[in-house]
């Protein structure tokens, strides 16, 4: 029988791009991405609420796809790009998605907002011109206890238009 080839580790070295910057770190393999971001890196945008993947407060993007950072190992981001809401603003200007949430008044306590903003980012990556049905399908896993969702939907629709306009401007 062939000897079993195995790499066993308690610690993992990770190298990734976080909000556009190269990041190298060593993390215990059992560190969640949410703890890594919040406690090790001080990026407290992503929030812990349900801790069981149903509320979306901890939503961040890994290679453009939304994940629940509360239930995702930090080591999995090795070789990938990670985006959190801290990476959206450019040169002191809010990202159109963030601006749309402000303009629509789509928040009250704001605890769900970083997750809402990031799921909107994921939505617009996949569907630059989303229908209301598609918006609802993406947002259905993100809970808000305050707003009643109407203004959040408005903000997402505005954000979609603003991002599309920005893309058109960039293309010309």
């Amino acid at each position: 029988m062939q000897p079993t080839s195995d790499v066993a580790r308690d610690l993992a070295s990770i190298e990734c791009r976080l909000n556009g910057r190269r990041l190298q770190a060593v993390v215990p393999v059992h560190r969640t991405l949410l703890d890594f971001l919040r406690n090790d890196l001080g990026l407290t945008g992503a929030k812990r609420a349900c801790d069981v993947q149903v509320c979306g407060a901890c939503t961040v993007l890994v290679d453009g796809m939304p994940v629940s950072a509360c239930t995702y190992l930090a080591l999995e981001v090795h070789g990938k790009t990670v985006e959190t809401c801290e990476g959206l603003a450019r040169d002191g200007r809010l990202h159109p998605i963030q601006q749309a949430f402000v303009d629509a008044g789509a928040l009250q306590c704001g605890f769900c907002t970083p997750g809402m903003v990031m799921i909107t980012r994921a939505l617009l990556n996949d569907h630059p011109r989303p229908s209301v049905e598609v918006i609802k399908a993406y947002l259905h896993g993100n809970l808000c206890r305050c707003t009643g969702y109407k203004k959040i939907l408005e903000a997402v629709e505005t954000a979609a238009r603003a991002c599309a306009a920005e893309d058109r401007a960039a293309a010309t």
Partner: protein
Amino acid sequence: MLQPFRLHDPATVADASNLLADLGEEARAYAGGTELLLAMKQGLLHYRHLVNIKPLGLSGIRFDEETRRLRIGATTTHRAVEHSAVVAARAPMLASMERHLANVRVRAVGTVGGNLCFAEPHSDVATVLLLHEATATLGSARGRRVVGIAELLRDAYTTCLHPDELLLDIEVPELPPNAGAAYQKAAFLERPSVGVGVALLPAADGSTVAEARVAVGCLGPVPVRVGEAERALAGAPLRGRAFERALDAALDAVGRACEPVDDLYGSAGYKRQLGVALMRRAAVAARDHAAPARGGGISATD
């Protein structure tokens, strides 16, 4: 809080299998971790070793023209299935079910294999695969074997996998082009509380049901096919009052076959009624998709 564990990155299925055999009950395969890490965080499961099976090359989707089967690797994510053009063309009911499974985040990370191997009684995947009469390929350092979905799922949270075995892939036979199939579910938050489906395979002339498949999920420890309901529908004309009468008999059988329990999502009686009501919708939709049109799926109710 997650308690510390060691992560193993074996290179091959045989290596993973040997590791699982050596480490015994202290170890578990780790794919997307959407169930495993959750249960470990909550202190419901304890493992000192996780064996990462994502690098084993078990992900991917392929349609074999010869066998008319869709092959879906165990570590293929729900998202990959949801976005696959091949799945949409060959198994539209499966594609539609995947679009409504959990939420976008769980679909991006969770795998089809992880869903089946966890054997959560509230699985949409298992019920739809039962309707397709899908098979699962299991592998270990000792070899491979192929089992049906009903054989794979022994009981709630229990599969027929040996401790050193991995699920490698599932094979999903395409339904005949004139078949109609539909899956319906009711879900609060994410997981389904009831999920039922019907596939109707018409006779060559398209006027009667040659074969009916009826599957009930979430209303018992494992999803089941309801033979009595299938026999009630088999041979029935696809149109008119006679179909309705056969359907009524099938729905009676469904009501008797399910074993719901009272929980946060409803009383047993309520869930039984919901199952029967959703089954009626699924059957009518399957009938409407059958014959002239291609086999199709309709979206879940959620």
